[in-house]
């Protein structure tokens, strides 16, 4: 998994490439913690090149969503593949994020 970060006008965009699984989820968790600890609340994640996600990846995103919920913000996901969106639906996580 690779994470590309773009920071522009207080908006952080992450582009995740590859697989978000049990082995790689800790890397994303670290990155999200850094971003949220720095006070950024407007966060977009581009899933265009994300091929795979498991519950470990969902958990990391859920933790970030809970933090942002405290300031009434949601992470925005863009370019989500249908079969990946379906996993968010099944998990009941869809309402926690903005899908665009």
């Amino acid at each position, binding site marked *: 998994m690779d994470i590309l970060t773009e920071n522009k006008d207080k908006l952080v965009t992450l582009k995740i490439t590859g697989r978000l699984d*049990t082995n790689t989820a800790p890397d994303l968790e670290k990155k999200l913690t850094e971003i949220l600890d720095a006070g950024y609340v407007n966060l977009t994640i581009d899933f265009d090149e994300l091929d795979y996600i498991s519950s470990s990846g969902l*958990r990391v995103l*859920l*933790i970030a969503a*809970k933090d942002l919920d405290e300031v009434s913000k949601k992470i925005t996901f863009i370019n989500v593949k249908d*079969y990946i969106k379906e996993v968010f639906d*099944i998990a*009941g996580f869809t309402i926690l994020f903005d899908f665009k």
Partner: protein
Amino acid sequence: MHTLTVLNSADSLIQIENFILEIQNNYKLSPKIGFELNLILEELITNKIKYGFSDDLEHLIELNLNIENNLIVIKIIDDADEFDLIDYDKNDINKSIREKEVGGLGIYLLKEKTDELIYERNDNKNILILKKKIS
């Protein structure tokens, strides 16, 4: 019949990824089915590695996969502690964001993406059969 034997270590997930990719290519399965097979096996094996073994020793987990008449059948045999996941369901998707617990989600996803599950405990071994329709 396709067989893969992995150890109860994090490396097994990479072996499973490659195993499923090969099956996906050989049988021309859609990316969605390939993704779901990988998800089912990752959730199962990760759960076994985390909670299934009460010692620190190496254990073998055997996966047998067969595809016939648009049905994928995967048989997983291991000597982990007895665990019947058919009765296991902790995740409650109706809970609000603050109540949501992170545990149990993997098994929940596995069950949602599987059409039939059969579990047996024989000779101190777990035998789990997962069936998934292709279409």
